[in-house]
Every structure is written in structure tokens, then in C-alpha cells.
């Protein structure tokens, strides 16, 4: 077990299974098929992401360095949240990027009853430690516990 302290971007608590990408998450490429074609588990459709491709992202503790790619990223994440197909939480090793921040903040302010806590600045050590399937718990102060 190990704990990491990050910064709260959007508040909340969560307990979920880790899903890890060591490369940047291309939000549009990853969610586009799930959102269009009714996949409630949000299987990652980004062929360029060898770690995530084909794996369900909904309900997972998504651990990543940052998001990349199209500036539709924020509205794609917002749409995933609106449809209940978002990760349980998003945990960034780096400072959050502008697209992921937009998606998380839009969901936080404009959607009722949707929770997707986001913590960033967890450090490279966090991504080096966490593995797919580990149990993640985050509290509302940005402390992330990995078991």
C-alpha cells in the first residue's frame, strides 16, 4: 500500500480499480466509439494507445500523465459524464492539461448529480507504482491510496 498526495481539481471521493496509461490519453480517440455506438463500458478506441486499447474505462480510476489531442477533448469528457460513461475518477501524474480540466469542470458545474473527482500533480512516482487492477481510494483532500 502506498499513498500519494495530489491537488484537487474537482472535488469528491472515490474507490475504484486502477486503469493505467503511461502515455497521454487522447480523449477523442479513446471515447469516440463508445459515445457514438452505445458502449456503456467506454472501451478505449484509441489504436495508438497500446495499454488502453479495447479496455473499459467507465467506472475505473484512470491513472495517466495528461490528456492530448483534439480540442474536442473537454466536451467529449463532458458528454461521457452526462451519459454516465465516465471514469470513476481521473488521477494525473502531471499538472492537468487544459482539455481534461475543461471536461471535468464543465461536468462539475453544468451537470447535476454527476461525480468524477479529479486529482493532479501526483508525480511520476505515482505512475511508476500504480498498475492495472490495483484498488484506488481518493479522499476529498487529494490523498490517493493505492493497494
Amino acid at each position, binding site marked *: 500500500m502506498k499513498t500519494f498526495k495530489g491537488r484537487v481539481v474537482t472535488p469528491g471521493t472515490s474507490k475504484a480499480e486502477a486503469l493505467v496509461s503511461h502515455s497521454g490519453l487522447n480523449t477523442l480517440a479513446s471515447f469516440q466509439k463508445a459515445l457514438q455506438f452505445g458502449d456503456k463500458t467506454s472501451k478505449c478506441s484509441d489504436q495508438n494507445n497500446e495499454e488502453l486499447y479495447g479496455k473499459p474505462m467507465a467506472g475505473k480510476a484512470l491513472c495517466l500523465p495528461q490528456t492530448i489531442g483534439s480540442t474536442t*477533448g473537454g466536451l467529449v469528457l463532458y458528454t461521457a459524464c452526462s451519459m454516465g460513461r465516465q471514469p470513476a475518477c481521473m488521477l494525473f501524474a502531471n499538472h492537468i492539461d487544459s482539455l481534461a480540466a475543461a471536461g471535468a469542470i464543465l461536468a462539475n458545474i453544468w451537470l447535476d448529480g454527476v461525480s468524477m473527482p479529479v486529482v493532479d500533480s501526483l508525480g511520476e512516482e505515482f505512475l511508476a507504482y500504480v498498475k492495472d487492477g490495483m484498488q484506488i481510494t481518493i479522499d476529498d483532500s487529494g490523498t490517493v491510496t493505492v493497494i
Partner: protein
Amino acid sequence: MNLKPEQQAILNGEKGETLAKVMKTLVMFGEAFDAETMVPVTSKYNHLVTSFGLGALQPVYDLMNQLIDAGALSSQKFTADPRPMDKNVPSGLLQNLVFKNFMYNKQDYYENQLKKLGLLNDDAFTCTCYMDAVGNKPNKGDVLSWSESSAVVYANSVLGARCNRNSGILDIMGSIVGFVPYFGLLTDEGRKATWIVEIKTSKKPEAQLLGSAIGMKVMEDVPYVKGLDKWLGNSLDDDACTYLKDFGAATASNGAVGLYHIDGLTPEAVEQGEQLITDGAKVYVIDDAELQRVYDNYPVMWKNLDAKPKLCFMGCPHMSLQQLKEWTDKVESSLRQYGNKKVVIPTVFTAAPGVLKEFETTSYSARLNAAGVITSYICPLMYMNNPLSGKMPVITSSNKLRTYTTARYFTDDEILVQITKGGK
């Protein structure tokens, strides 16, 4: 964040609940980046990434309706990304049915929303809004609330405007209140390079391959590229701007680059030179072998790797007028070389509606048409994003299109041979 009285008043709800939520969104967004103030948006026009009436994006249209109903309209007119459908582009009956009745069944609805919110005109749909024929070209130093990754990186790097990589929805919110949070690429410090990229190739590197390599390496950092002026010269002429358009799109889609500096060429690099490079900047050397390594590592999503291509898309991002003319010459010349009169694979060149209209006034247009090439204002990415198109063997020299779809990437030279030589 330190808000000015008029900003605080909006946040306090003095202009209504919806505008207060818009301001709250922008403030919370700024605070995520430690922004201390908001600054006025100074460009004449805005640009939005969302142009497609995709049924799946109903939550976005619902939010837009909230804005419209509250009278929270854009303070600027805006251009938007390309339309997803064009009857000029070859498609089967089933594809047409899927496009119109399933995927983009909200297109008319969403375009009506855009008109209410402030769409510039009916031809305002392109990812290359900065082309002269379109007219949304910001000035150096302008503060923008744009989205569309390829347009943002071009505006920052080639035009010297200042814009963060805003997400869709945030783009119009900045324009509605007229302010954006001051951080990142809006600041002098945020425009400094933390990577030095040294180009040591034996020939002019393919724009979209080079951009892809840099994007994947530096992610969202700012690269200062040395050695490219050897191939591009020291003037931002049509050739250089076209190259940088394609290069930048690949840096932004294969990574998250919002600004690059080209030594001796782009405005801030010309003015400030290596003073733009931060202490301790990392170094990435790109030679022929590195570009080949990047190319060889692209996944190919075709079921049959030897399939004959059924369609070729050029123009993601949309082609420039200069590019359309140059490719007309290249296609004609290559067809002559291989003894063909028309392209042997259905081929679509995409460009902004305004650019296409200008192209049609030149003699090149009839020549390109005679060579069998179709021109269109469509977004190739939107065409490809469905299971029917996804199964088609489509080729492209766009690294952006490759990233998001099953289209297979080839270099410009390889594409030219494929569309003009065929099986001969």
C-alpha cells in the same frame, strides 16, 4: 483569482444565473492553472471546434440551448470546424443513410444553434479559418478564445496570436463574457521553449511526419526547432505557411503542442531567437532514422494490409490554395508518367469553402477535375468515424486523420504514386 468589478458582477449573478455559471466555469478553469486575472479577448472573430450535429453529443446541444435561452450569445462572430457531410464525396447508399439518419441527424439543428450563437456566415465551416479567403486571421498579439488544435497551434506559432488549447464549449464561453483566464500560452513565460529540436535529416522532412514525431516526444511542451529554416527558408511565404499548417496539426493531434518556434522563421523566433529557450531545455535530435522509426511504428488498422485502397483523403487540415495548385501540377505530371488520364483511386482534396471558391476561379480547377480528383469542404475525420467507413481501406498523408481513424498513413510522395499509378 482577482476579478475586475464587471467580472465579479457577472459571477455574482447580476446578469443572470446562466452567465454566472459561464463565468464560474472560466474562473474555476483559470484557477486550475493558477491564473490570477482574466484578460479581454481581443481578436475580431472566434473559432469553434464543434461543427458537427452528432446525435451522441446531445448533452452539448442541451448546454448550448441553455446559453441561447438565457441570451448568453457570443460577443464575437465565429467560424467553426468543417461540416461532416458533402454529397460530392463518394459514399454508398448505406453510408448516406447512416450519416443523415443516424450519426449526423442533428446537423441542421446544431447549425441553427450556431447561427443563433453568432456564426460568421454559411461558408464559415473550416479548420483553416486563418486562410485569407476565409478571413478569420488574428493579428500578432491578439488574445483568442479559440479551440481546434490545428488552428490554435497555427495562430500561436505562425501568426503570433495568443491562445490556450481551449476545449470546445470553453471556446464560446470565453467569447460570451469577453474574457479568458490569463495563464499558459497567453503569458510571455508560458511561450518559452522547454525543448530544443534539432533537425538533421538529409532532405526536407515530411511535414506531418516531423510534426507527429515532435508531438509524441514533447507532449504539451513548447519546442524550439532548429535546422528547419534550411528547408523552409526565412520567409513566411505560402510554401512555408502551408508546411507549418500541416506540421502543426500533427504536433497537436499526435501530442498536445499549442505553440512551436521555428528558428529564423516564426515571428517570436525571429524577434527573440534562442532567448526563447529556457535553461535546462531538453534536446530531441531528429534524423532520417528517427523519422523512419516513427513511421514504422504507426499501427495499421486495416484487416487486409494488401487491400486496394477505395478512397484517398488529402486535406486534414484543409488544404491551402497554394497546395491545391501544387497538387494539380503533381497529379497531372504523375498521371502522364504512368500513362493514366485520371486518378486510379477515388481521391478527395478538402479545403475551406472560401478557398475552393477562389480555386474555382483559376485554370487549375478544371485541370484537377479532369484528372478525376474531387474537391470538397468536408471534414474527412467526420466521414471516417463510423463502422462502415472504418472498414474501408482509406489512405491519407494526414497524420491527424491517421490518429483518429482507420485511414492508413503514407507520405505525400507515396500517396501521389498510389493515386496515379495504380496496379500498373
